[in-house]
């Protein structure tokens, strides 16, 4: 199992979910992707769209300030 991390805290729509999607594409089924993102639009939409695409969201946690961490399993 591979674990990959991306930081999209500085990105805006649509690159937030574009980068998440491209990172997920490079992984195999069962691999995990950790995403650092900001509250607001990215936090509302990135986990939601990952779920819609059939991936599992294992964790959503606050890191500090407006930054959150989510873990997606492909």
């Amino acid at each position, binding site marked *: 199992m591979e674990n990959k991390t991306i930081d999209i805290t500085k990105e805006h729509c649509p690159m937030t979910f574009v980068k998440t999607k491209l990172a997920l594409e490079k992984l195999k089924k069962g691999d995990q992707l950790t995403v650092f993102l900001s509250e607001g639009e990215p936090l509302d939409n990135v986990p939601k769209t990952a779920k*819609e695409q*059939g991936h599992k969201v294992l964790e959503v946690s606050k890191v500090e300030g407006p930054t959150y961490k989510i873990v997606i399993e492909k």
Partner: protein
Amino acid sequence: MNTSEEKKLSIICLSGDFDKVLAAFTLATGAAAVNYEVNLFFTFWGLNVLKQKKQRAFLGNTFLAKMFNFLMGGLKNLPLSRLNFMGISPILMTIMMKKNNVATLPELIQAAIDLEVNLYVCDMSMNILGMTKKDYIPEVKEVLGVAKFLEYSKDGETLFI
């Protein structure tokens, strides 16, 4: 996988204005990232976006085509639809976008290519402008007309920009 794979967005990109092209590619990449099948059909001014030559160049097979193509320019000459100020505004806009960490137009185009957005060239406009498929970036999937576009966009959402 699920129903989301059946969603489809087709955009007719007539405009070669910087801001309108930006809107088209923002929608296209966003939709592709959430598993939409995305078709971008470029016609007339929109074709400037896909030219291999990003700067002004005398492309085409006739004198008039060469003049038109030179004046229309390429990706680096796209004007802002308002307040263009002889092409200074798109440059300033790109600087502002970078400063605010918003994806620039070339970044969005690359993302669209990475997400396998389908890029199509309008056969009629291409011929008027005396161009051939090899004048456009190799990622262009097909040169096509109205019938094919209707077939590809069938049962999806279509926008005209």
